[in-house]
C-alpha cells in the first residue's frame, strides 16, 4: 500500500530512465537484427549481421585483440595500483613528504580525457626524428622502435598507454581499501614475528580480496569499452592490429554508416558487459555481507 503511494512520485524518473537508457538499448538490440544502414533506405529483419560477423572472422579477430588488450591492461592496472597504494600508505606511515603529490599526479592521468591521452602518447611514441621516446632510447643505445607502425608493437604500445591511464583508479580504490585494514592485525602479526612478505600475503591480500575483485570487474568493464584513446593513438591500425570491439562499433556506425552491423557488434559487447556487471553485483553483495556480519 505504501509502495503504491510512492510509485507516482517515481514516474518521472522511470520515464527518464526508460526513454534515455532502456529504450535506446532495446532499439540497438532491434537494429542488430536488421540490415539497416544510413546510406540505403529501409531495412529488413535478418540475422545476417550476426552470421556475417561470425563467418568472416571479423568478430573473432576483433574479440581476440580486445581480450589481449583487456587482459594485460587489467592485470597491470591492478598490480601497479596495488603497489602504488602500498607505497603511499608506507610513505604516510613514515611521514614522508610528497605522498599527496604522488596521489594527485597519478590521479591526473585518470582525470584526463581519453583522446588527450591518445594524443600525448602519440607524441611520445612518434617515430619521426622528433619522437621523444625514440630519442631517449637512442641515448641509451637502443635502436629505433616502431611503436605504432609495427602491428605487434602497436598493440603493446596501446596497452601501455591504457595501463598508464587506468592505474590511478585502481590505486585510489585500493588505497581506500588498505586504509580500512585495522592496524592491530599488523601489530599482532609483528609480535608473532611475521615478516613483511607474510603480512602482505596473510593479512593484506585476504582482507583486500573482495575489494580487489570489485576493482577487477570495474576496470574490466571500463577497458572493454575503451575506444577514444585508441582512436586518437592508432585509429585501430596499422591494418586492424589495434582495432578493439568498441572502436569497431564506432567505425561501423560513424564511418561506414552500417547500423545493423554496428548494432550486432554492440550487442556482443553489451552481453560481455552485462555478464561483468552481474558478477560485480554478486561480489558487491558478498562484500556487503562480509562488512555487516
Amino acid at each position: 500500500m505504501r509502495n503504491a503511494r510512492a510509485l507516482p512520485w517515481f514516474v518521472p524518473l522511470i520515464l527518464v530512465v526508460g526513454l534515455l537508457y532502456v529504450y535506446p538499448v532495446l532499439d540497438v538490440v532491434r537494429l542488430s537484427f536488421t540490415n539497416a544502414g544510413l546510406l540505403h533506405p529501409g531495412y529488413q529483419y535478418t540475422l545476417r549481421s550476426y552470421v556475417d560477423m561470425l563467418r568472416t572472422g571479423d568478430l573473432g579477430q576483433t574479440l581476440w585483440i580486445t581480450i589481449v588488450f583487456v587482459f594485460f591492461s587489467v592485470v597491470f592496472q591492478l598490480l601497479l595500483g596495488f603497489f602504488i597504494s602500498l607505497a603511499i600508505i608506507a610513505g604516510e606511515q613514515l611521514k614522508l613528504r610528497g605522498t599527496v603529490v604522488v596521489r594527485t599526479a597519478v590521479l591526473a592521468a585518470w582525470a584526463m580525457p581519453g583522446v588527450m591521452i591518445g594524443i600525448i602518447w602519440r607524441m611520445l611514441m612518434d617515430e619521426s626524428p622528433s619522437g621523444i621516446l625514440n630519442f631517449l632510447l637512442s641515448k641509451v643505445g637502443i635502436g629505433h622502435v616502431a611503436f605504432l607502425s609495427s602491428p605487434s608493437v602497436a598493440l603493446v604500445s596501446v596497452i601501455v598507454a591504457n595501463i598508464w591511464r587506468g592505474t590511478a583508479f585502481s590505486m585510489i580504490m585500493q588505497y581506500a581499501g588498505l586504509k580500512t585494514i585495522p592496524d592491530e592485525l599488523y601489530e599482532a602479526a609483528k609480535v608473532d614475528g611475521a615478516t613483511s612478505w607474510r603480512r602482505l600475503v596473510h593479512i593484506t591480500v585476504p582482507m583486500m580480496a573482495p575489494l580487489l575483485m570489485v576493482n577487477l570487474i570495474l576496470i574490466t568493464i571500463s577497458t572493454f569499452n575503451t575506444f577514444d584513446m585508441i582512436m586518437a593513438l592508432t585509429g585501430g591500425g596499422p591494418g586492424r592490429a589495434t582495432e578493439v570491439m568498441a572502436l569497431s562499433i564506432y567505425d561501423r556506425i560513424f564511418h561506414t554508416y552500417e547500423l545493423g552491423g554496428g548494432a550486432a557488434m554492440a550487442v556482443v559487447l553489451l552481453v560481455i558487459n552485462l555478464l561483468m556487471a552481474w558478477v560485480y553485483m554478486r561480489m558487491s553483495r558478498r562484500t556487503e555481507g562480509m562488512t555487516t556480519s
Partner: protein
Amino acid sequence: MKRRSKAAVLGTVAVIGLTVLSGCGGGAGQNAAGQNAAGNATATAPAGNLVTPDLIGSPNAKTTITWEAVPAYSLKGSDPKRVQYLQDTFNKWAQQHPDWAVKPLVASATPNEAMAKLLQDAASGNAPDVAQIDSYIFPQMYKYLTPLDDYLAKAGIDINDFFPFAQKIMKGPDGHIYGVYFTTDVRMLFYRKDLVPNPPKTWDELLKMAPDLEKKGITPYLMAGGRGEASFMDILPMYWALGGKLVDDKGKPVFGEGENKQDWLTVLGDLQQAVKQGAMPARATNYKNESDLNTEAASGKVAMFLGGNFQWAQLQSILGDMSNWGVAPLIMPKADTRETVSGGWVWGVFTKDPAKVEEAVSFIANGWGSQEGMAGWCKVGGYLPTRQSVYQKDTYFSQPPFDQFAEELKYSNTRPGVAIYSDMSNNMQIAISSVISGSKTPEQALDDAYNATLQQYNSMKK
C-alpha cells in the same frame, strides 16, 4: 517527522525528474524549425547588428529558416577571423531581408558523425532547411534535396563557372542542380626545392632519387597511410591514372576484379616497393590525414610529401618562409598521366517551400556562392574556390601557389558518390595500412578489402 522526510525525498525525486524532462522538452523546442513565436508581428526596419550566435536577423522576422553547418563554418567556430567574416556578411544579408531570419544549428565537429546524423534527419524528414554536406556524401542526398536551377539563375550563380569536378557533384542524375559546391581543396606533391630540383613524376623516378636523399639523412617521401580517409582518397589518383574503376554503372564494387584488380596491385605494389627500398618509411601508417605530416615537414628532414593545398598556409604559419617549398603534380604510376583528387563542402537545401528556398539560396549566395562571397570565405578559411572566375578576378587567387592549385583542379576528380563508398574506403584504408606496415602482401590486402566490401554491398541490397 519520518513521514515528512520521506515525502521530501519523494518530492525531490519528482522535481529532479520533471526538471530533466522539461529540460529535454525545452531543448527540443529550441531546435525546432519553422515560424518563430512572433510570426505574425510586422517586421520593423532593422538597425545595427542583427547577428547573434543563436539568430541571424530580426527576432520579429515573419519567417525563419534553419541553417546547419559544422563548427568551423559556423558562428560558434573557434577562429575569430572566420566568425567575424560570417557576422559581417550575415548582417548585410539580414539588413536586406528584414522579413526573414535564420536560425543557426551547429553539427558535430566530426564530419562523419555530422553526416551520419544529417542522413538520418533527411531520411526521417527532419533535416534543416539548409545544410552543409560533405561533397562525397552529397550524391546520397539528391533524393531528399530540392532542385535549385531557377533559384541559382535568379541569384546570378552559373554552374558553368564551376570546375568540371564540382559540376558533376552539383548536378543530380536527372540533370537538375541540387547544391552549391562552395569550398574545395586539391592534393599535390609538396617538395623541398633545395633537395629536389626536379620533382619526380613517376614512382620509378622517386625510387631512383631516394637513395641519395637517404644518405643525407632525409626521408625521401611521406604520405598519410594510416586508418583515415586521406590514405584512401589520396591514393585514388594513382589508381585512376591506370584507368581503374571502383564501381560499375550500377554502383556495384568492381575494384577487386579483372583489370581493376591488376591496377590496384600495381598501386599497392608501388607503395610496398617504396617502403622496401627506403623511399617511404613504414611510419606513414601513423598518419591519418595530410595535416599530420606538418610536423615532419617542419622538422626539415622530409624531402617530399603528398599533401593538400590547405597545408601551404599551415606550414607557412609554422615555418614563416615557404620560398624553399614548391608544389607539383602527384607522383603517378606511369608517365604522361596526371590526376588528382578534391574534397570540399556543398550547401544543400531541404525545404520544399518555394519562398524559403528562394531566401535560402540568397543566404548561400551572399555568404559563399557569389564570386565575392566565395573569394571572401575561401581567403579567410584557407580554402580553394570552386568557381573558375574567382581565380581570374581576385588577385589573391591569381598568384602563386594558387595559380598552380587552380591549374591542378582541372585534373581533379571527386570520390564516387555511391552508397558503398564509405565501406570501400574503410576496407581499403586497412589494406593500404597493412601493405605499408608489411603485415599483408598487396594481393592479400586487396582480396580481404574487396571481399569485405562485396559482403557489405550484398547486405545493403537485401
